[in-house]
């Protein structure tokens, strides 16, 4: 049982949610699926006075818009797996289908929530950076867009300002490029330890974004025909390796090259 009392709010539009958040942003938590915030509240690690639940705010959608897939902040991993629009992004679908925790977890957890949590050791940051996503955030004053590469600023840190909440993520469909996603975990129960999101062009040019290994996702470019070169580049790009209880940064850096190669192989 959560130890301290709080006010529960379920606004019916994103504008209303932003206005509610603006009223007292310092002691308010916003929940999408809630799979991280609720757990931390239960554990006493977060202690808000108000909770804004986005369930009725109209943010559970995935649609195609101008060559991109737009994902509402409240869309779940299962929504992604079932979405016709998201099927244009096989790397995204592979990532969503591979999220640990069973169907129960994928039915509730959201990409948006994971993005806002900003845990380096997870799937979403590396994938969004790797696919060149843009995040739309809303405050009482309106919306602004942030490139994924700028959104994830460090371990458990994002570019979200006080009073802002995530509205949607826009992922361009990479025309003429093959996509690959590879995730390495220590065991099934493990958080991602190193992920690779690869885009491979018809000419063999390859871009690989390594997630979970560095404090912020890192992107390297090279050729799909020179995997060893890509691997070396990936390892070298890990300049501020991320450490947590499961794995220290040194280990993550050691395997980053192998993961980069596997992501490219998954794409071609």
């Amino acid at each position, binding site marked *: *049982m*959560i*130890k*301290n009392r709080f006010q529960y709010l379920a606004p019916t539009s994103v504008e209303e949610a932003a206005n509610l958040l603006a009223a007292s942003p310092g002691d308010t938590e916003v929940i999408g699926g809630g799979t991280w915030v609720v757990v931390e509240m239960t*554990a*006493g690690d977060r202690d808000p006075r108000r909770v804004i639940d986005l369930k009725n705010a109209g943010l559970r959608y995935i649609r195609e818009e101008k060559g991109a897939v737009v994902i509402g902040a409240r869309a779940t991993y299962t929504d992604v797996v079932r979405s016709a629009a998201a099927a244009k992004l096989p790397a995204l679908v592979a990532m969503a289908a591979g999220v640990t925790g069973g169907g129960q977890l994928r039915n509730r957890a959201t990409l948006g929530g994971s993005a806002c949590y900003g845990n380096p050791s997870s799937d979403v940051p590396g994938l969004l950076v790797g696919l060149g996503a843009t995040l739309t955030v809303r405050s009482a004053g309106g919306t602004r867009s942030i490139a994924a590469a700028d959104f994830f600023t460090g371990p458990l840190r994002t570019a979200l300002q006080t009073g802002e909440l995530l509205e949607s993520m826009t992922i361009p469909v990479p025309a003429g490029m093959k996509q690959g996603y590879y995730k*390495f975990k*220590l*065991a*099934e*129960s*493990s*958080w991602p*330890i190193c992920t690779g999101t690869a885009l491979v062009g018809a000419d063999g040019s390859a871009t690989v974004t390594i997630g979970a290994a560095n404090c912020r996702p890192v992107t390297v470019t090279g050729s799909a025909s020179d995997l060893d070169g890509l691997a070396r580049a990936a390892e070298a790009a890990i300049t501020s390796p991320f450490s947590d*209880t*499961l*794995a*220290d940064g040194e*280990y993550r850096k*050691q*395997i980053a090259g*192998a*993961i980069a190669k596997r992501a490219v192989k998954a794409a071609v």
Partner: protein
Amino acid sequence: MSVASPYPKAVPEANRYIGQRSRKLKGDQFLTGKTEYVNDLELLGTVHMSVLRSPHPHARIRNVDLSRVRQDPRCISALDGEEAKQHADPIPHFISAAVFGGKYNDVRVIATGKVTYRGQIVAAVVAPSRGDADALLDLIDVDYEVLPFVLDGDEALEPGAPLLYDTEGWEDNVVIRIPFVEGDFDAAAAGADHTLEDTFYHHRYSTQPIETRGYIASWDPRAEAYTLHFATQNPHPLRWVLSAALRVSEAQIRIIAPTIGGGFGLKMPGHPEEGLTCVFSRILGKPVKWIEERDEALLLGAREHFHRFKVAFNADGKIVGLRNHFTANVGSISACPGWGMAFLAGLSFPTGYKIPATDVVVTAVTTNKAPWQAARGYGKEGPQIVMERIIDLVAEATGIDPAEVRRRNFINKDEFPYKTNSGLNIDSGDYHQALETALKLLDYDGFKAKQAAALAEGRHIGFGIAFELTPESADIPGTIVGGYDTSTVKMDPSGKVTLLTGVTTPGSGNDGGIAQIVADTLGVDLDGITVIQGDTDICPYGFGNYSGRSMVSGGNAALLAARDIRVKLSKVAAFMLEAAEDDLVFDQGKISVAGTDKAVAIKDVANVIYTLAFATAHMVEPPLEATRVYKPDNIVHFPDEKGRIQPYPTYSNAVHVAIVEVDTETGKVDLQRFGVLHDCGNMINPMFVEGQMHGAAVMGFGAALSEECKYNADGSLAADRFKTYMMQRANEIPMVEVEHQVTPSPFTLLGVKGAGEAGVGGAAGAIINAVNDAIRPTGARLRRTPASPIHVLAALKEAQ
């Protein structure tokens, strides 16, 4: 020395149930959500307890200030350690190291004076809801004098290491040092063709049933008695523990263990929260409930051993000497039986191998980690892993096939009962045959070619073998760990049977197994038997669940009790049928005369015994109730000429085989196939036995690959939830392929041996050997558990 059995050996003739795969009793209730676990009970007026745990691994408690919490309207009651002392004495140690010449320290329901681990209880509160109680903890102010701490077992043994206990007798951090020495190791080593030395680190991991611990204590001020609904494996022993700590007689305590959601040792007695809920209940006159949270359950660990061994062996692979002086980092001292696993780890060497000279010394050392608690295998699992590593190292050194080295060192089947160097009297077995069957299970002979082909493609696959000896059904002298148990069988006037027994089930289904024995003995339907366990006011005295003892002790006791009932039924039926007793057959609810169509329903005979006691049933004494104890043979507690005792009646064994592939780029181990040949003597229900092996083996997979009680440098537990304490999930493991071999125990009535603990150490040992087999071409060697990607990659890098 073996004492002749006073019990006639016989199995019931019908065997409708014994040896059959009968389904779990009351399975439909579990499957429809009707089963009640402790957290499901709602007692009127229940209030909720939460405990404040030390944020420091080692500190002196200068002051606990409860004034702010007591002013809060949500606070019903609050206590610190000094106040709790007014209400409770130290908790008796379930297995005291002092009994074996080791050291002792008082353990109380709330710490006083000092805390010696992060997570130790320093205060407790009671509130109307658990949420409120948790919130109140923030209002408790504790003033600590922080002390230097030590987490590593070897460091704790160094001169100048922080001393955990400043009470009398604690001149160092050694809890106990126990030698198991037989023969002259140095002479053996001098005479051997070869010796090798190496180390092995067996890491700390834990039990983690999905249901955590939970207690609801109710003091009735009018009756001056407690009723305790406790998720415990051992109701009667716990009653003894609590009676001493709470200053009441055992008769003033009734413990009722509801359905348990898994035990594995965690729910054995000695936990401070057991007594603490009682203290509050007595103060308040209300039921006080406490349900353990997962981060609390993860505090309690097991098995952190550092082995330094030297092996002497000849060119033919015969091992002639083993020296292993190892430390066991048992964490802080608790009243739980955890530390005893260090003792049994030493006692279990050298498992099922004949080694003339052994010099095994275990040093149990206390550190500022949280205490150990009993864990499936109870110390016997560690030696399996280390011995099996040693066998493979000898194979590597001599160039002899690892299976062949095992064959050359096993105890032969015609040598049983076999007395080991540590004094264990192994009952029976056929280890050579067990090995052959296990090897066939995964096509050992064909593997070498597959391995070579894989290696040619750059893939590293490996085959691992591990023999496992599991001493079971312990009786530890001078402690409340009994090897005997008691069962009562009652047949009511309508012919239905109620079975009460002192053994309890943590979920394994031993209630069904014991009922199968009774059903066959009496010739009645299994469906008509009601089993009652876990209630100290109703059930006969017994020790509950541990050490694979349920069939050996409770099952055989039920057989004896059922036979007593059967004797009465037989006499009366013979009179009714005008037949000789020897001609009667008990089956399908009827007693019939062999070779005729004459029969009488058992329920009618039962009715006659109750209602015609002075007529038809004049020759027997009603009612149809019998209580019997079964003391298995082969336990010997008079020390032999070398001072050794023999605490186990039965010795199950198994041979585990594993095939793994190691990803040398990441260090990740993929367990591809796993098989086990298991021999626990006669089986009452093979399905239940297999279920035990499946679960234990997969715990062993976790031990070998992913589960780890990691600590932070500041002394806090890093792996404090299931996101960091990683147990195995269904989609990363193969089927556990089980085959049986049956060498009945000559020392138990039904020929059964213990089942339930075997698997953890054997499975882990096979996997560690398989990993080493896979990475051998790289020159790497893994000298520790778990074979997690990080440790395997480190071993691979070291070899580069």
